[in-house]
């Protein structure tokens, strides 16, 4: 066997080895790259799945909340659901009627300027909330009537009225002639009361009117 022939064969083999090595490296590179790409796609889909599951959980949580709120809604007094805002005539009428009911004399209410509330729980989609401070003063025949008057009045107010302060004082003990004067309407009760109410009143939010671009053109003949 000649050295030249051996050398030729070695060169041919080396060339084949070179080509095979390139093919091998190409295969490895393709495997790695393709694997990484597919894993990336799979991870992307997994992330999207996690997002959907998160939305589902969120929605389920909201659904539970809604169910809870529905139960609450059904139990709410009509006065609390009222969304007519603050109407002083109605307030005065209510005050007078409640005072009459509990023999309250000299009922007086002072209401501060309503302040709109937009933050926190008052950030509502369907109603606007305004808050005012109502200061109530009155005279009652006894403590029970005084308490019931304040409680009923607060409950009957449209919206929510929170009794922040309530003060009942007995100015003096009843004497015999006091009872006669009271019955004839010449005197009021010996119980003086004052209460500070935080009154939250609601008004329905008006839906935004359609812009001219939104309204379809009317046909004219």
């Amino acid at each position, binding site marked *: *066997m*000649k050295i030249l*022939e*051996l*050398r030729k*064969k*070695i060169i041919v*083999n080396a060339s084949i*080895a070179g080509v*095979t090595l390139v093919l*091998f490296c190409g*295969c*490895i590179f393709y495997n790695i790259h393709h694997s990484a790409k*597919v*894993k990336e*796609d*799979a991870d992307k*889909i*997994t992330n*999207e*799945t996690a997002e*959907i*599951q998160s939305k*589902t959980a969120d*929605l*389920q949580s909201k*659904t539970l*909340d*809604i*169910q809870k*709120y*529905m139960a*609450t*809604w059904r139990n*709410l007094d009509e006065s609390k*659901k009222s969304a007519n805002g603050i109407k002083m005539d109605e307030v005065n009428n209510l005050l007078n009627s409640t005072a009459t009911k509990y023999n309250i004399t000299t009922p007086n209410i002072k209401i501060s300027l309503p302040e709109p*509330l937009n*933050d*926190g*729980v*008052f950030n*509502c*989609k*369907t*109603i606007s*909330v305004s*808050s005012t401070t109502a200061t109530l003063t009155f005279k009652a025949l006894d*403590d*029970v009537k005084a*308490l019931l008057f304040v*409680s009923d009045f607060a409950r009957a107010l449209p919206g*929510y009225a*929170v*009794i922040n*302060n*309530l*003060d*009942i*004082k007995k100015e003096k003990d009843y004497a015999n002639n006091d009872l006669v004067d009271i019955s004839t309407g010449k005197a009021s009760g010996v119980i003086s009361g004052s209460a500070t109410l*935080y009154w939250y009143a609601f008004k329905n939010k008006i839906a935004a009117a359609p812009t001219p671009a939104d309204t379809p053109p009317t046909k004219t003949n």
Partner: protein
Amino acid sequence: MFSKKNIVVTIGDYGSVVTLHDGSEIKNKIFLDELNDKSKEELKSIFLANKTAEIYLLIDTVDQSYKKKVYPLVRKADLARLARRDMASDGDKESFKNYFILNSKKSQTKTTPTNSRWECLFVSSTNSEIISKWMEFLLEMPGRLVGLYMLPVETFNLLNSLKSDIRLRSKIKNKRNDLYCLIVQNKVSGIRQVVFSSAGIVFTRVVSYNFEQPDFAEKYEQDLYSTFEYLKRLFPDLSMSEMDIVNILPNEALEIIKKINSQDLNFVNYTPFQAAAQIKESKLLPQNSTSCDLLLSRIFAKNKKLLKFSTPKITAIEKFFIGLKASYYLNAALILATITAVLFSIFSQERLNNLVSGAQTQKNLAAIEFSNVQKLALEGAKTNEDGVAIDIEKVTDFGKIEQAIGSAGTDVVNFYTSLKFLKTFNVRLAGFSYSLLNFNQKSPTPTQTYKVNFNGKILNKSGDIEDLFSEFDGLVIKVKESLNKNQVGYTDLPRNIDFNQKYYSFPIDFTISK
């Protein structure tokens, strides 16, 4: 390269024999008187038909020298250097030279003493014209010329193959040495004596006999005694009667040898056919075969080679050949690796597809679940109350507000009602106040704390101070008991009260906070 075929070219002074060995048999054999153009053409057809067969050159010429040399007990690497130096210093640069160690650990037996020195046998053979011609021809052939070998050295394998039978047939009892004298007849070289020890060849010579001559037996005996005389120099304790003489000669020669009546000569005789049969190659030679050329060629081809001789060109070819072999293995490994990578790619494709489809399936399931929940939520959103549809967002708004402030300040009446036990303690209230603590009008929280104060007087019918204290303490206990979830503060009866005075009433002041 990976072929089991090999071609053995045995060169002697009277001709050459070329044998093609393929596994367990000789496929082809050619005896040549000389290497001429005609014989080259004939040989070329064999070599070209067996391109992958390895070629061995087995030299059986008379111009071979075997010299024993002794070295001090140095390291084997140093011994190799010394031996190479001695071979290089030899004047004849053209001849083929090599050596082997006679007393290496492998060749030692229990009876031989441990080494105190190295004994080496230097073998050399003249690079005659015929050998040069053959080498030139063989290097042109497609097969690889592996190397040159000396037939007398390689005949040791034949002796080892016959040894067990020789021992059985030997007349020598209690043999004290391991020497055997083998006498073989070859067509290419004539008759050769070779003396072996357990380590290998000790001595060889070519003898010339004519079996038909009447003095053959006498000449034969004389040659044996000459050989013995030479051996005495190497083995002083050797006696003729203790050396086995193994003849592998034609039957006619053996018949004559059997008639030799000498007590000192112990023969073990084989015809070439019998020797071939003994090594399980009975089909190798015809029964009437007179020479051992094919037998020795076969023994050489199928056994491990003992001593290789090389030339610079053969060494260079060997290096290239190793490189070529390595490149074949490298290619095989790379091809295998590439195929593996491709298969891996194909099989992992399915796994990767499953990965994506699995993830997609999960996504679809999640989407379906979301859609179901959404549907339920929308159905829930469409609620009717007395035939009127209710906006769920309105419900949510009111629900949140109710949650935050629905219970604030609503417990004042209940609290006051819970104080009805005061009557049993003859308490007359003069004042009651209630106030929410820390109620933030703009951002209320569900849990509120309050502070309640009630004051008045406690009536004491008897007027006795002791009754007053007792009534008051009872009142305090009851207040604390009834309002145990709250913090109770009160103005205690003064300890410096006038015990002599009558108290029919005493002011009280309680503060309750949550």
